[in-house]
């Protein structure tokens, strides 16, 4: 009896993870694409030295952060994939989505400074699932940071 319940619950979680996970993914990706289009004019650069430093008016550190959770289905797919090795497509989309969102948040905070450019962009990823004290589905924090630059208006 207990075994049946456990089995039913597992299948329920897997299907739920698959359905809701897919739905979340799609909604979020659409929102990301929309905002990326809107902020297309913001120049992103990860070189250290700012071009034309003479006409810089404002410079400020900007950060974008996103903590991402894997869903139950993805966690299951990951464990299966780990048996045979190879590329983990489900996790690739997860990380890519998180990183794009982090960049967008960084850009949004740059816009608050009135900036038109972000330089010296750096990314950092850290696994914080150990914060739970147990091993489970991935919880990954991604941050993107850089220096927002606002130029002096041309006279």
């Amino acid at each position, binding site marked *: 009896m207990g075994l049946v319940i456990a089995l039913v619950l597992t299948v329920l*979680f897997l299907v*739920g*993870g698959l359905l*809701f*996970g897919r739905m*979340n*993914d799609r909604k*979020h990706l659409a929102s990301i694409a929309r905002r990326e289009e809107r902020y297309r004019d913001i120049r992103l650069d990860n070189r*250290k*030295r*700012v071009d034309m*430093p*003479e*006409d*810089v008016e404002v*410079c*400020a*550190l900007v*950060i974008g*952060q*996103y*903590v*991402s*959770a*894997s*869903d*139950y289905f*993805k*966690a299951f797919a990951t464990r299966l994939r780990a048996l045979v090795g190879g590329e983990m497509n489900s996790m690739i989309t*997860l990380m890519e989505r998180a990183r794009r*969102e982090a960049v967008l948040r960084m850009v949004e905070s740059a816009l608050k400074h009135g900036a038109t450019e972000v*330089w*010296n962009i*750096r990314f*950092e990823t*850290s*696994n*914080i*699932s*150990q*914060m*739970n*004290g*147990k091993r*489970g*589905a991935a*919880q990954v*924090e991604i*941050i993107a*940071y*850089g*220096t927002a*630059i606002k130029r002096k208006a041309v006279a």
Partner: protein
Amino acid sequence: MIVVNTEEVPGRQITQVLGLVQGNTIRAKHAGRDIMAGFKNLVGGELKGYTELLTESRRQATERMMQQAQQLGADAVVNVRFTTSAITGGAAELYAYGTAVKLG
């Protein structure tokens, strides 16, 4: 105070380098957030509670770094870097470091 992660402050001259400044914080989350995050793991997506927590913690680490720079009499902190690490169960360390400088 100007805080940037480029090697120099664009458009300004660095006249004096005052040295490394750093700030850190170690944060634990409360159980409620943890449980919510556990549920969220079923369907995936953003863990908003953690994003907020880490955002606030990172701001605190940055502020501590800026305080240290202020004590040195700095005008700016350049080349700022961040790191995050899960050090023990239930806690994360956020660390910010950079170089305090005086501007001309």
